[in-house]
């Protein structure tokens, strides 16, 4: 395989605004991105974005609840993650095996995940199994049981996953880097916790998370597929009847990344060093967000077309993968990059990356680079809507960030509006080669560690 996927990018979250309009169609003519988003308010008052698509008899549902692992109390790190592992492990009248069998008999796919700022829930079902799928989905959200045997089993699985992560250099580097950049903020803690904290989590803790977070005023929903607004309203109201109206407020402090450059080397006997670098970034609602997308595409976000790929991979053969990205959180944001190279070329790789970031900050971008970035970022946008699940994911992301129903049709104009002058200013604002914090896992040679090591 030729290159790995793009770096991780989290999405931030919106407040759900209840609208009285029942159905509001939005078409995207400019790119002929023919998705017709309806805003449906169910008879029970739940606001949901729906894209009807009857070609394939399946339905995809994506739900996001505000507040995630960043809310885990001190000493209870891994709580949101453990909840996400247990919601479909027994609910209502069904114990774990009965619940899972009911899903399996109908080929219903249900999943939950915890991020720093959110708890995600997803459902995929054949449309002729939708009644039972929505019912079970509702049970998982409203009446998860947390039976002792299921809790013990999922705890063992998380501990096994943590042990596995402790041998993976990428995971080791990622954990160390977040801790380095957010030493005193909950965003700096690993979302899945540690063996010590996971061992101590109780059923009471799990239940408290559910009652604090899973509520009607705290969620956004998108549904895509073989279902109309009326049937969706009926199924969703039935599924979510009795869900609490209000969640506890989300209280996460503002996050500012540690200032000043740093280098942390974690010695491991490995043939290749894993390198992670970065510093403070920006939030999704920052006025410079779209300029940061263009800037990053040119620097290290654009697959084969970026400067870092050209300099690190193509010209010098230093790494298979090198990439950067701006990751926004609700209360902050980061600039994160990564690369992997053999130990005796780490120093060179670090120097090249630093030099390229400095060159972009000081010299800006060319007209051609700017034009190419815009045609890629605008032209590839429809490719993000290429399956029901992908569309549902895009739509909850748009709701989470409070971008509005017609965002899909406006989004490319924001990219188009980015000017060379803006890029020059934003590069000065957002890129700081001397303030990069580096974490290297492996056995790197020739690095000047003493001067900057933590």
């Amino acid at each position, binding site marked *: *395989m*030729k290159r790995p996927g793009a770096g991780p990018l989290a999405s931030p979250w919106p407040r759900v605004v209840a609208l009285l309009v029942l159905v509001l169609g939005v078409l995207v003519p400019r790119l002929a991105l*023919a*998705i017709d988003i309806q805003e449906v308010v169910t008879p029970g008052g739940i606001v949901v974005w729906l894209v009807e698509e009857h070609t*394939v*008899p*399946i339905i995809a549902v994506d739900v996001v609840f505000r507040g995630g692992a960043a809310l885990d109390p001190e000493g209870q790190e891994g709580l949101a993650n453990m909840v996400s*592992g247990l919601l*479909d492990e027994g609910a209502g009248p069904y114990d*774990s*095996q009965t619940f*899972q069998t009911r*899903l*399996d*008999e109908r*080929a219903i796919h249900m999943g*939950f995940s915890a991020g720093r700022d959110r708890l995600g829930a997803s459902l*995929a079902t*054949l449309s002729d199994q939708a009644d039972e799928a929505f019912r079970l989905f509702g049970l998982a959200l409203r009446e998860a049981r947390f039976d002792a045997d299921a809790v*013990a089993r*999922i705890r*063992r*699985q*998380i*501990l*096994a*996953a943590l042990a*596995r992560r*402790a*041998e993976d*250099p990428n995971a080791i580097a990622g954990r160390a880097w977040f801790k380095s950049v957010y030493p005193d903020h909950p965003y700096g803690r690993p979302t899945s916790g540690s*063996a010590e904290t996971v061992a101590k989590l109780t059923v009471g803790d799990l239940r408290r998370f559910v009652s604090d977070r899973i509520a009607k005023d705290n969620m956004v929903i998108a549904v895509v597929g073989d279902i109309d607004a009326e049937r969706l309203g009926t199924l969703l109201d039935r599924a979510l009847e009795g869900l609490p109206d209000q969640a506890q407020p989300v209280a996460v402090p503002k996050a500012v990344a540690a200032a000043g450059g740093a280098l942390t080397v974690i010695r491991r*006997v*490995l043939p*290749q060093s894993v390198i992670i670098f970065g510093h403070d970034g920006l939030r999704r609602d920052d006025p410079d967000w779209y300029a940061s997308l263009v800037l990053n595409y040119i620097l290290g976000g*654009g697959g*084969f*077309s970026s400067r870092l790929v*050209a300099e690190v*991979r*193509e*010209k*010098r*053969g*230093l790494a*298979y993968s090198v990439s950067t990205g701006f990751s926004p959180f609700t209360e902050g944001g980061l600039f994160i990059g990564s690369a*992997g*190279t*053999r130990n005796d070329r780490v120093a060179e790789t670090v120097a090249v990356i630093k030099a390229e970031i400095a060159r972009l900050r000081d010299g800006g971008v060319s007209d051609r680079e700017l034009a*190419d970035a815009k045609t*890629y970022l*605008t*032209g*590839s946008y*429809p*490719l993000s*809507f*290429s*399956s*029901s699940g992908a569309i549902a994911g895009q739509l909850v992301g748009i709701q989470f960030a409070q971008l509005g129903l017609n965002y899909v049709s406006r989004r490319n104009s924001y990219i188009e509006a980015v000017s060379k002058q803006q890029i020059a200013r934003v590069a000065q604002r957002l890129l700081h080669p001397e303030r990069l914090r580096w974490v290297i896992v492996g056995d790197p040679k020739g690095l000047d560690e003493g001067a900057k090591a933590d």
Partner: protein
Amino acid sequence: MTPSVRGGMRFLRAIVFGFLVLAGLTLAGGRGLAADFRADSFSLKNGLQVVVIVDHRAPVVTQMLWYKVGSADEPPGKSGVAHVLEHLMFKGTVTVPAGEFSRIVARNGGRDNAFTSQDVTAYFQNVAVGRLELVMRLEADRMVNLQLTPAVFAPELQVVTEERRMRTENQPAARLGEQMNAVQYLVHPYRIPPVGWMSELGALQLDDALAVYHRFYAPNNAILVIAGDVTTEQVRGLAETYFGPIPARDMPARTRAAEPPQTAARRVVLRDRAVRQPRWVRTYLAPSSVAGEKQHALALTVLADVLGGGTTSRLYKGLVVEQKIAAAAGAFYDPERLDLTTFGVYAVPVPGPAGGEEKALAAVEAAVEAEIDKMRVEGPGEAELKRAKFNLVAAATYARDSLGGMAQMYGSALAIGETIDDIVDWPARIDAVTAADVKAAAGAVLQARRSVTGEILPPRGQDK
């Protein structure tokens, strides 16, 4: 292929993946289509097979070009060369400078990539439908006009060695998978990792890659799959314009050494200081959908689901839920290979005290063997059989939701000699699998003498 990992498998997947990636294995997979869908297909005079999957849901299109050449077709001593050639295919033609292929695609709002397996090399682009002509012109161009210099070859070979370090050498599970393959196949080239052995990879020359290019890259050795907002006639016109003028080549048969019957169980133990979580995996030499006792292929697909396809499967229920000795357990089977494939089972023991790892692996091994023995003797029950078949058939419907997935499914099946009928009829044939079929397949394949057992462990006390 649509991996049929089902709900509640999130944590397991994270653990399991270490085994599957690079061992070249996939999870028990469903594929096929709802009966109301059939792709169109035609061939050009030069032998290029063209498959068109019409889907008007969105104005986008996926182009995939599959060459029937993979790492198992490499000359001896040249492991990794098919994959290196795949990288070099982005390094310029007579008219498109090095690196420009992907830049042109990106500038036009597209995404592109490629991959190499043991049997195939495939290139793909996802673009707005108006850019189909552009990417078809580019793809046809590099089928014949590749123009490479030593200046681009040297750094790209370094890139590939870094890829090997990242994916294989830095990952104990990937190294175990590589060793297990090399032990499962004594003679057949599936024993060689697609990325190549480091010792041979580093010694490759530009001419080695060009030899593969000139031998295997030709219209009569390729399948073009177009999925998206197009019509068959439109694709036919474009394909004739851009691929039509490329002459066919003499295509010698793919000759691969035949694997002798396996007559003894084999075992591979990997110890590494990095290991924090011991793992156990076993593979059995097995027929594929086109090789060996292929009448068992569909039943093995069902068997993988019943035995280890999710949280209600035999292995998960037995080891994880009831005996509580494993954090994860499951099965996998990839029928889409040109020659004999493998059927696999795995288990990850629950974390325990240091020093107890060997006992923990022995316990999960015994428990997996007990489940297998039971399956060989009794076969599956009616309820679990019905559930497995329903899920596999449903996977065919889910598969229709993804353009890239559909192109992948058609390309990978046709590239090993299956037909469009095989794909279209797949759900009906899965549905016809009986408990007796599954029992017979388990009896034929899940025999100790066909197996390789792999273990990942921390070092023994004295080695630390």
